[in-house]
């Protein structure tokens, strides 16, 4: 690193670098920065230095959260969004693992579908929202389909690479003890590919959430995305922030949950 390579002269005193090297420094500085930001926001918003219906401020946001929760608005819409998410995400994981495994086992199959996979992976998934809505209607189904589309590709890709990178030695060990192909898959390959697989699933979460909200914002009857859209047309910044916070928290929680699941399934894994 550029900042180091100087020794400590004997009487250098307590320098900034010394302070920052402290193990808790990162946390404390980060916390301080966030706090400063929140305070500045509160002052600017509550003091109407900038119109508070445009930018809101922390205390108003918290207040709004509770009123939205109390009115049941949050729960009904969150429930719909959650349902759409699960109905798209779970099949995506299952199908993704299955296809990914298929690709790993058959190079030919993989080559055949590679263009399609690449196309779906690198193109902006949002572009598919209108056509999916045309095909699947304005209700829950189209949202689930979007979630599925957004999540299935990373899972496929990571499953394929995960299996491909499984340590050759483990496979050999299984076969040396007379395992048949299916047993090799179950006992050496799937566990070995697990970290990569889980990483792929975690990656999908972000994409899936974006696809879901985009689809709901585009057109829907209920859901968090729709709420966001509704409030956006009436300059209700506080409500929008509440919804943003909810969506972000959901994604964060899910990823954290997935990490826990991975630790539970694969305690032998080297640390990340």
């Amino acid at each position: 690193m550029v900042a180091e390579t100087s020794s400590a002269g004997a009487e250098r005193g307590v320098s900034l670098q010394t302070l920052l090297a402290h193990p808790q420094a990162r946390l404390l500085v980060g916390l301080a920065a966030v706090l400063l930001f929140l305070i500045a926001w509160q002052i600017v918003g509550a003091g109407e230095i900038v119109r508070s219906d445009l930018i809101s401020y922390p205390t108003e946001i918290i207040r709004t959260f509770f009123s939205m929760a109390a009115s049941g608005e949050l729960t009904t819409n969150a429930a719909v969004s959650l349902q759409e998410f699960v109905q798209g995400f779970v099949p995506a994981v299952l199908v993704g693992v299955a296809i990914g495994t298929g690709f790993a086992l058959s190079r030919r199959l993989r080559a055949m579908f590679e263009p399609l996979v690449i196309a779906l992976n690198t193109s902006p998934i949002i572009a598919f929202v209108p056509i999916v809505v045309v095909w699947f209607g304005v209700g829950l189904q189209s949202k689930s389909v979007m979630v599925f589309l957004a999540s299935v590709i990373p899972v496929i890709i990571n499953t394929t690479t995960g299996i491909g990178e499984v340590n050759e030695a483990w496979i050999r060990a299984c076969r040396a003890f007379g395992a048949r192909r299916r047993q090799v898959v179950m006992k050496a390959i799937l566990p070995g590919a697990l970290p990569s697989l889980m990483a792929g699933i975690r990656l999908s979460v972000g994409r899936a959430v974006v696809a879901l909200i985009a689809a709901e914002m585009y057109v829907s009857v209920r859901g968090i995305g729709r709420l966001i859209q509704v409030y956006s047309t009436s300059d209700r910044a506080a409500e929008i922030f509440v919804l943003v916070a909810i969506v972000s928290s959901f994604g964060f929680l899910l990823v954290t949950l997935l990490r826990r699941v991975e630790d539970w399934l694969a305690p032998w894994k080297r640390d990340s």
Partner: protein
Amino acid sequence: MSAADLHPPARGGFRLSDRGEQFLLGLLGTVLFLVAWEVAARSGLLNPVVVSNPSRIVAAFLGQWQSGDMLGDVRVSLIEFGVGFGLSLLVGIALGIAMGLSRLTEYAVDPFVWFLYASPLIAFYPLIIVWLGFGFTTVVAVTFLLSVVSIVVNTMAGVHSVDAQLVRAVRAFGGRRIDVIFKVVLPAAVPLILAGVRIGLGRALHGVVLGEMFSSNAGLGYRISFYAAHLRTADVFVPLVILVVVGILLNQVCRMAEARLQAWRS
């Protein structure tokens, strides 16, 4: 050498080079897919008005091209993309370097970067409309926000990855801080910066489409929702395909550049 070796290789027969075979198979797969689609639509298995089919799409493509609509849309999207992504490159690399070099900056800015990285920025979208209105500025702003984060994060990682020994060497030969930054840190960080650029490009494309779809009346993203709203399904596919192709191209170009650079790393 991988799990694919659970299959013993095919005996005899016509063998192409590995790459050639993969390419042909890819081609075959795509062609089969298109043919199946066409057949399904024509035979009435799927409703062609709703689902469309390749031949109609090609016709729509030609139609839009001739009317000049396509070029107009492409131009708008291109400009928004260029400005938005260009901005995020400038800001992203500068911020990434600052964070990479200064621990204080890194610790202070990191929570915000992390938040932008982890949260679905799409949810902020309506707020941005509230602040910036409809049209060009908003699209550029969204494009910027979506792509800047991956560039910052990767640039910072690139700076951190610099070999301290090289820094020491340049300092030993009398290099000042500015020399170290431009002659060692930046060049050494380029591979990771490129990776960030690759990801950022994809996200910028995302941002352009998102922006145009929800808050604009021009550009490829807008066209997609416009045609969809009018149930002109064949037309919908034209800008969609263009976007997909552009996405693939950008990605491949970046990967090739990255591979080139890997050469001197080894």
